Structures are given as structure tokens and as C-alpha cells.
């Protein structure tokens, strides 16, 4: 009788320590990778320049007619497009990148779970896209006079990291499913426009064929975008935010399975370091 509570206490304490350790590994990896990416001119250009290009095009196109959505709608869409841009450009080949740098064996051999080491990489890649939100909104305000009025600032502040995390985890799913595909990066980049198109970042889903709806609903960026837009323009934020969070967790689980499978195959075939 005296042992049971003690044992339970140790179990809770052990679980708590495990969660803290996992969170520390994730956060340290995120900060490290965010810093590495922030000094890459190519990544900063992808995050800050291309969203401005698409925002400019959207502003010019929407301004040319009186039937288009608002310019704030366009600005928010272009900003989140930037997050996906950086992810599509780099996340697909994230594992390949570690291999080229010669650190993949070290990461796999580390006592932490592989997902805790690789998820921060893809989330940091998506996180770099935060530059796109700042640059796009500023660009819209200064050059096109887009009124930046956020309906629910607190929810907006939650929706942005939720969208970043969701897109980063989608990047991790891509990275872990394409790990045995030699040109993962090229394939991942080819998904840039399709994901923009079917997740309603600039184009309302109602304009697309109906058969695309289930695909769009299964993609967390659809809900992340919806949460960001509703937090800014108005509407129910809770539902898209919850669905976005649930899909993000599902992506993490799927990635874990895929990475476990990849790790087992790589160990069996001794192909971990082969490019």
C-alpha cells in the first residue's frame, strides 16, 4: 500500500520530466534552425520577396475590378502563401539536407526521438515565413493603403503560430514521406501552387470543383488560413483553430510512423548516409 502512491508519483514525475525534455529539445532545435535560416539570403528572399510579388499581383488584380475580395483578404492570403513557399522550397528535402551536411547519422543516433530532432527543422522553415506576414502587411499598408484592422487581435496572435505549426508539420509529413525519393526537394517545390490553390489562401474554395473539398479539409493549412483570416476580418475562429490543431497533431503522429519506418529501413539496409 505504501509503494503504490510512490510508484505513481515517480511515474507522473517521470512523464513530466519527459515532456519537459521533449519540449526543450524541440525549442532548442527550433531556435537553432531559425537562426541558421535567418542568415540565408535565399531563404529570406523566399520568405520576404516572393510573398510581396504575389501580394502585389493580387492587389493589382483585385483593385482592377469591383467584384474582387478586399485587399486585406489578399494581403493575409499572400502572407500565409509565403509561409507555405518557404516550406515547399525547403522542407521536402529537409532530411536530405541533414544528410548532405553529414549530421543525419548523429541525429539518428541521438537519444532523443527522431521526430523531436526533425520537426523543429521543418517548423523553423515554416517559421521563417513569419517574415512574409510582416513584410506583406507592411507592403500592403505603405504602397496600396490596405487598411490593417484586426477584428480579434488576441485570436490573431494565436492563429498565426497555429498556422505556422500546421504548415511546418505538413512539411514534416512531406519530408518523411519523400525521404526515399532522391529528388524530394524538386517534388516538394512542385506542390507550391497546388497547395496555394486548394487551401483557399487567395482563391475561395467555392470557386473550385466540389471534389476538391475533402482534400482541402484534410489539409491543415486550409484551417490555419481560415483561422487567420477570420481572426483578422471577422467570423468564427474557434472551429478552424481547433480543426487546425487536431490535424497538426495527426500530422505529427503520421510523421512519427513514417520516420520510424524510414529509420528501420535505413538501419537494415545501412543506407542512412547514402545520398
Amino acid at each position, binding site marked *: 500500500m505504501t509503494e503504490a502512491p510512490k510508484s505513481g508519483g515517480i511515474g507522473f514525475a517521470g512523464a513530466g520530466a519527459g515532456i519537459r525534455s521533449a519540449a526543450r529539445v524541440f525549442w532548442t532545435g527550433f531556435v537553432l534552425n531559425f537562426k541558421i535560416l535567418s542568415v540565408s539570403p535565399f531563404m529570406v528572399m523566399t520568405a520576404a520577396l516572393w510573398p510581396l510579388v504575389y501580394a502585389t499581383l493580387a492587389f493589382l488584380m483585385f483593385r*482592377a475590378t469591383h*467584384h474582387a475580395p478586399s485587399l486585406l483578404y489578399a494581403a493575409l492570403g499572400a502572407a500565409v502563401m509565403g509561409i507555405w513557399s518557404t516550406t515547399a522550397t525547403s522542407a521536402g528535402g529537409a532530411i536530405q539536407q541533414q544528410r548532405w551536411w553529414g549530421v543525419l547519422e548523429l541525429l539518428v543516433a541521438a537519444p532523443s526521438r527522431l521526430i523531436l530532432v526533425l520537426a523543429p527543422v521543418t517548423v523553423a522553415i515554416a517559421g521563417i515565413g513569419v517574415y512574409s506576414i510582416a513584410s506583406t502587411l507592411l507592403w500592403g499598408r505603405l504602397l496600396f493603403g490596405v487598411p490593417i484592422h484586426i477584428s480579434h487581435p488576441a485570436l490573431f496572435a494565436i492563429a498565426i503560430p497555429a498556422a505556422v505549426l500546421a504548415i511546418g508539420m505538413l512539411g514534416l509529413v512531406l519530408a518523411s514521406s519523400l525521404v526515399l525519393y532522391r529528388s524530394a526537394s*524538386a*517534388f516538394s517545390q512542385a506542390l507550391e501552387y*497546388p497547395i496555394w490553390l486548394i487551401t483557399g489562401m487567395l*482563391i475561395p474554395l467555392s470557386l473550385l470543383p466540389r471534389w476538391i473539398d475533402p482534400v482541402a479539409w484534410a489539409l491543415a493549412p486550409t484551417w490555419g488560413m481560415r483561422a487567420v483570416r477570420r481572426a483578422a476580418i471577422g467570423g468564427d475562429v474557434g472551429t478552424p483553430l481547433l480543426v487546425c490543431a487536431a490535424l497538426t497533431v495527426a500530422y505529427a503522429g503520421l510523421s512519427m510512423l513514417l520516420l520510424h519506418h524510414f529509420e528501420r529501413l535505413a538501419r537494415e539496409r545501412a543506407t542512412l548516409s547514402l545520398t
Partner: protein
Amino acid sequence: MRTWLRIFVVGGAISFRALFSWIRPSVYVPTLLLGPTTQVLFFAYLGRTAHLESDDWFVVGNAVQSASLAALFGMGFAIDGERWSHTLSAVLATPANRAALFLGRAVPVLLNAAVTSATGFLGGVLLLGFRPPWSAVPALALLVLIASFACTGLGMLTGAVGLRTRDVPIIANLTMAVLLIFCGVNVPLDKLPGWMHSTAEALPLTHAIDAARRVADGASLGSVGTQVGVEIALGTAYLVAGFALLRWFELEGRRHGTLDRA
């Protein structure tokens, strides 16, 4: 003359194969074939969102613009790739005629750009019901080649700048962004501010896209002769400027011993 032609044709083909040996179908198909198709689709739907122009208008604009992707990046790597493979000094140490050497590299890039653009058109046909008159197809093909030539000329210039600044992808990306916004690809020129419209007149693609849209609407090639002439003139001007810059950078590189510095 025979040597010039040999360096131009054989040298150009061999260097293209050598410098782009890393391009496998698994890279080529998603990047240069799927990319233009998805771009055409995205902007056609964005056009529907804005109620701006017809699908055909966006198909032609984006398909022709796709040529710039292959031309700008291709020409940049055709020049700067020598530095990455540590063969730049060896290439420039040869007595080979520089015009034959660099123009020869431009031909495969030009043809590849035209294929990329054609894929965009094919995507429009398959996914958006783009149906130009059959009689317009040869003229459209010619216009695609002309646009690819003009973009390759600009690629020679940006490739030379990239050789100097040692960052070809960034220069190519910036140039492609300018072309996408300014050249009437997705926004009609008369809806652009005056200064953007004026800038567009001096850029490749603007005139080719305008001509291609008219031809796709049923106009004859003869009726767009002015646009064709201006596009060819612009392409030639950019090509000559790019070549001159390359020669100048080569002389500077020799003088300061910085040719192979990565």
C-alpha cells in the same frame, strides 16, 4: 568559320549536358513541366476570383512567361556552373571564340525554355479548355520561340551579373519577379500605373505575350509584326549587353585573379 560553328553547336550541346547532368526526370518533370501547368491553373482561378479576364487570357500570359523560368535559371547556371565545377578558368583559358562559346550555351537553354512554355499551354488545353484555332498553333509556336530567345538574352545579362555577384539564384529570382509583375502576365497593362507600363515596354515577354494573346484570338502573325519585331530587338539588345558584360567581367577577373573565387 567551321571552328566557330563546331564550338557553337558541339561545344554548346556538350557543355549543356555536362553542366546540367544533375537534372534527372525526377527533377525536370516537377520543376519545369508541372510547375508551369500549376502556375497557369493558379492564376486562371485567381483571375476568376477577381473577375478580371478570361481563362484563355491567363493561360497565354502564364504559359509564355514560363519560358523565363528555364531561360533565366538555365542561362545563369550555364555560365556560373563552370565556377561550381571548377572549370571556369580552364574554359576561359582556351583560345575559343567567346561569342561561339557563350552563344552556343544559349541555344539549348532557349529550346528548353520553349519546351517549358509549351507545357504551360498544354496544361491550359487539358485543364482549362484552352482551344486556340488550329491555324494559330504554328504562329503561337513561333512566338514562344521568340519569347524564349528574348528571355535567354536577358538570362545572358543576369547570368553575367550573377557571375560577378556570385549569387545566380537570387538574381534570377528577382528578375523573374519583375517579369511576372510588369509584363502584363496577370494584370492588363492598362491597369498598371504609368511608370510600370513604361518599364514593361523595355522588358522581354511584354510584346510576345501581347502578340500571343492576339494570335490565340484569331489574329494573323502579320498583324502582330510590330510586337514580334520589338521582342526580337529587345532580346538581341539584352543578349549583346550580356555578352559585353561577360567579356568585361572576364577581363576584370583575369586582372584581379578572381575568376574562380566562389
